[in-house]
Every structure is written in C-alpha cells, then in structure tokens.
C-alpha cells in the first residue's frame, strides 16, 4: 500500500512536470514578449528544399568520384577473379545509379517550380 502511494506521488509529479513543459511556454508567449529568430537562411519551404537538394548535390559530386575510384581500385587488384570483378562492377553501377537519382532530384525541384508557377 505504501509503495502504491509512493508511485502515485511520483506519477503526480511527472504529470505536473509535463504540464509545466508543455504549457508554460504558452503562458509566456501569451505575454507577447518572446520572438524566436529563424535559425535558417531559408524563409520558405521551397527555399529550404532547394538548399537541401543543393547540399546533397554538391556532396554527391564529391563522393561519386571517390566511390568510382574505389571501384577502379578493386578492379585493379582483382587480377581477373570473376567474383572480385563482379563486386567492383556492382560498386560502379550503384554509384552511377545513386548519382543519377541525385541529379534527378535537382531537376525535380525546377520541374515542380515550373508547374507551380
């Protein structure tokens, strides 16, 4: 019984804490004093998506050659072993596919913009 009451107490405290966490900001905002500055450079969703895609695009431009070189390396040390050659070919193929998809994503942004405009 004692244990139960103790648990109950903890539960109550937890509920009160949650209440504080979720509703205190509301009261604070109701006073109308606090404004959170936008931490992003983008001000619209479109700009945000555009900059994200841009970042991924430039990252892909750097990583695709790296993966391609690794494929070349594996090909170079395979010495004709079909299994190893296959692995290198697969790396090159999937690098190409992934890179193509990234470029498509960049194109998609402009397509959507044209449809929306």
């Amino acid at each position, binding site marked *: 019984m004692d244990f139960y009451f103790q648990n109950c107490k903890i539960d109550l405290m937890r509920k009160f804490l949650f209440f504080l966490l979720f509703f205190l900001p509301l009261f604070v905002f109701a006073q109308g004093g606090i404004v959170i500055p936008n931490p992003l450079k983008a001000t619209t969703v479109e700009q945000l998506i555009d900059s994200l895609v841009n970042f991924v695009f430039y990252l892909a431009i750097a990583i695709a050659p790296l993966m391609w070189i690794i494929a*070349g390396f594996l*090909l170079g040390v395979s010495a*004709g072993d079909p299994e190893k050659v296959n692995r290198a070919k697969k790396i090159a193929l999937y690098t190409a596919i992934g890179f193509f998809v990234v470029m498509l994503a*960049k194109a998609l942004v402009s397509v959507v913009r044209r449809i929306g405009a």
Partner: protein
Amino acid sequence: MAKKLAILILLAILVAPMAFAQVASCKLGRNILYGDVRYLKGHTIYDPETAPAGTPDCPDSGDTTGDCKTKEWGTVCLLNSIYNVTDWISFILLAVAAIMIIMGAFTLATAAGAPEKVTAGRNYIIFACVGIVVALLSRAIPAIARRFVGA
C-alpha cells in the same frame, strides 16, 4: 594488446585535432566550386565566429582572392576533406596498379609458355590498366554532372 594500441592510436588521431583546432578552418587542397563561388586551392576558409580579426569575407560569387571567412565553411571543408581522401586513394591506386603490372610481367616472364600462367599474367596487366582507366574517368564526373544539371 594490439587492439588496445589500435584504439589508443585512433583516439590520438581523432582527439588531437579536436583539442588543438580552436580556430575552425581548413586549407583547400583543390579548387572547390560550391554555389556561385569558386574557392581556390591554397586559400584558407574560416568559420566567421572563430576567424582571426581582420579576415575578409568570402565573395558572394566568383573566385576567392585569398584567405577568407564564410558561413559555408562547414560544407566547403567537408568537400575539401572528401577530395583529400579521393586524391590519396587515387594515388594509392596508381601505386598498386604499377605493382600489379610488374607482377603480371613477372608471371608472364616465368610462364615458360604454360597457357594458364600466360592467361593469369595477362589478366593482371589488363585489369590493372582497366582500374587506372576507371579511376581517370572519375575525374570527369563533376564536370559531366554540372553540364547535365547546369549548376
């Protein structure tokens, strides 16, 4: 024992730069095109918050003219490190390919006409060359991508 040593060395490699790199920056090993700006090789790009006093801002478009600070330093430095890795791996690839070609030549020379040995030696050389060609092709990827997308 060896495992502990490896972990220690890894920690040293990882932690040492963090402990000493108070100024967030990187010196570029290659020209890096990001957005409208071309960050030129040899210039140091700083984080605006920790840059030494008097460091100029990077231009909004065109080439950088020297050491400068920009908000994009994180991305630029990330790209720079990836390019560094790429350069090192391509260097290692060339060295290994040379060794593979020599091995192939050795196998050919000591084959004494045995068909399977001749094939093995030929394969060594052929695949070393193919590896080099693939690595060289990768140099063209950024240019192709930019032409394709128009960035």
